[in-house]
Each structure stands twice: as C-alpha cells, then as structure tokens.
C-alpha cells in the first residue's frame, strides 16, 4: 500500500480519518473494523434491552389498570325481624334500594334476587297472579322464583340469609345460591319458620 510521506506536524486526510474512526470506536487500535461476531452480539444485546424495557413498561401499564382497592359498597345488611314477613307473602320494600325480595313461602324465608336470569331486567311481583313477571321479554317465575314461562333459562337466584344476635335477618349479597346447582336446600340460603 502506498502511503504519502508525512511532513512533521502535518497529517494526511486519510490518517486523520483513521484516527477519527479509531476515536469513535469504529476501528480498533490496530485499524481493523469491528469483528462481525462482536457487531452481532452488540445488536442482540441492544434488541434484548429494548424488548425488556418495552415489555416491562407494558406490564407496568397493565398492572396500573388493576386497582388495589375495590370501593364497591359491602352488600351485607339487615332487613328486620322474621315476624315482619308473614307466611305466603312477597316483601317488596328492598326492591328499589337493594334489588331483592324477601319471600316467605310458608315454611322458609329467603332473599330472592330481582335480576331476571334471561337478560338482567328487573321483574315485577304480580300480587293477583301470584307470580314474578319480567316486563322486558315476559319471563314468569313462581313465588319460589322457579321459571315457568318465557325465555328465562334458570330460576331466580337467592342470597345468603342468617340471623343476627338481635334476631334480625341479615342478607349477604356477596354469596348467591343457584337452583340449577341444587343449592336451594343449603341451610345458609333460607331461614326456617
């Protein structure tokens, strides 16, 4: 390779370029370019770091969307003494506030969910016909909440009822009982009268 003689104090443009590239790390101290293996390693390292940073940022984003505290009000409340619910009656006083009926069918008192099992409307208690009737699609339920007409596929759900120390009935909407699972005979689902 022909190199121009360099006068003292002066550097050829080629030499200057090589020195600059050495300073930038493109060429090593011997003037050779970066080995392919090292280039690929650096590339893999960079992409791994990028993927890790992006992945953890997305994971953190997902975690942020799940709150640590659920502020939904606790659905455990007293509805009164069992004597307030005479045999063979449907009590509608908690329908608007808690969306339940307290039913006394003559042998048991239980809390019936006022949510139609078809598409979630609120049925009405028809006192003359002695049945629950949903205004949306005409599903009908007996006093026990058993579906007998219309599109509703299952009986109305029931909630846990217990007796408090002062003798009042306590309804817990956090636990529900499903007829199709045979849970209506669970002792927690009714209060015997």
């Amino acid at each position, binding site marked *: 390779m022909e190199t121009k003689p360099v006068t003292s104090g002066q550097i050829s443009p080629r030499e200057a370029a090589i020195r600059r590239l050495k300073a930038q790390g493109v060429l090593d101290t011997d003037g050779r370019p970066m080995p392919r293996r090292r280039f690929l390693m650096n590339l893999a390292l960079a992409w791994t770091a990028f993927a890790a940073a992006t992945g953890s940022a997305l994971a953190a984003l997902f975690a*942020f969307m799940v*709150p640590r*505290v659920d502020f939904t009000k606790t659905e455990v409340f007293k509805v009164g003494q069992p004597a307030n619910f005479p045999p063979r009656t449907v009590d509608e006083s908690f329908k608007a506030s808690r969306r339940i009926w307290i039913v006394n069918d003559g042998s048991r008192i239980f809390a019936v969910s006022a949510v139609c099992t078809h598409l979630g409307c609120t049925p009405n208690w028809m006192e003359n016909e002695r049945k629950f009737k949903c205004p949306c699609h005409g599903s009908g339920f007996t006093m026990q909440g058993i579906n007998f007409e219309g599109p509703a596929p299952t009986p109305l759900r029931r909630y846990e009822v217990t007796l408090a120390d002062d003798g009042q009935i306590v309804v817990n909407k956090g636990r529900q009982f499903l007829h199709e699972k045979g849970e209506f005979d669970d002792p927690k689902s009714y209060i015997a009268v």
Partner: protein
Amino acid sequence: MLKRLKLAILNSQIKRSIFRVGIPNTDRKRVLIVLGNVFLHLHPTKVRTSAVKLRYTWCAGGLSFFLFLVLTLTGVLLMFYYRPTVEGAYPDMLDMRSAVPFGIMRELHRWTAHAMVIMVMVHMFRVFMTGSYKPPREFNWCVGVILLVLTFLLSFTGYLLPWDQLAIWAITVGSNMARATPLVGAGGPFSDFLQVGGVPLIHPGDDARFFLLGAREIGGTTLLRFYVLHCVAIPVVAGFLMAVHFWRVRKDTISGPL
C-alpha cells in the same frame, strides 16, 4: 428457499401498501421512504453536526418535548382514577397514592410538570443567548413564546385539580387577576365605559373572571372547566403548535454556532 420467502414478503400487498417503495437501494428510494413516513418526515433531512452538539443546543427543546410526552402518558393514566367533582377530586387524589399500583404516578406527573416549565424556560434562554431568534427564525420564536404561555396555562389549570386548600386559594388569587382585565374585567380599567343607558355590560356575572370560573366563585364548575382545559383543550392546541414549531425547525434548519 430463503430468497423466495424474502421476495414474497418484499413484493407482498401488505408490505407495498405500507412502505410504497421496494428495497431502499437507491438515493431516490431512500428519500421517498423518509418522505412517505410520518415519523421520519418530521426530522430534518440534513443536520449540521456542529448544530446538534449538546454544548450548543443543551437538548433543551428535545427534553421539553420528552417531558411533554411523559406528562401526556402519566396524565392519561391518572385520568383513569380521577373524578373532576367536588366530592371525588380530593379523595381520588389521595387514593392514587395507595389504592392504585404505582402510587408514584401522580408524583411523576407533578414533578415532570415542574421540570417541563423549567426546561421550556432553559430552552428559551439558550435560543436567546445563541441568537437563534433572529431572521429567518423570527416566526418560530413567536410560536415558541405562545408554547411557553400554553405551558404556564397547563401548569396553572393542573394546579387546581388536587382540590386541596393550596389549589383553591392559588386559583382564587390567580382568577382574581382576571377581574382587573382592561375592558372585560368587572374591576378593570375602562370597563365602566361599556354600558348602555346606565346598565353596565361588564359585571361580576359575565366578566373575564366569570368566564374562567364558570361561576361567581370557585366551585364544581371551575374544577370541571379547568379539568377539560387541562386534559383536552390546551394539550390539543399545544400539540398542534409543537408540530408547527418542529416543522419550522426543519425548514429553517438549526442555527449553527457563531
């Protein structure tokens, strides 16, 4: 085998519909790719190495934009847990610290906001000291001044949102200044002239302060008003002006060191 796969990908409808040009193996194709890409076209095609020296730009404008992006991201996340109502705002602000993962998110938003105000002023100082406001860049200087005002307004409107004592009294003081606006402030100079047959046109029920608060006193209407301004109105205007600002930087080129 690999070659055929590569050609199939390069010639596929999807690849061509997104990138328009084939393999960028000529200068023309490279330019077309930059022009046809919304992210790349914002960046100047030509930048002088001397002009991007950290020593010269301090990267203050770029850092301001980065802080704006951080604020946008953290702000949107905070919006998921904040209700701009008199009953909800303060408890929600407190709950963001413990009832939500990454309780630092609100602090991040707050400190980044402070940092952005400082950084925008640092950027302005640098532009002034390097004389980068001089022609042909005088228009971009004006856009920058508006962006500075918008940054202050974002900071001002965001200050009310925690809905604590500090926030309410700071906005009380700030909005009382609007009362003294000439002509359109009920207590300002020349507003007495605006009357018809002795009936004042400018009074506390319709002046600049009322416009700002949505009521005669700070309340739920003010909180909602400042929330919408803070989260939607001002960021949209600022984003639009930022696009203009960056476009002009590209078109006028970055000023070089003397």
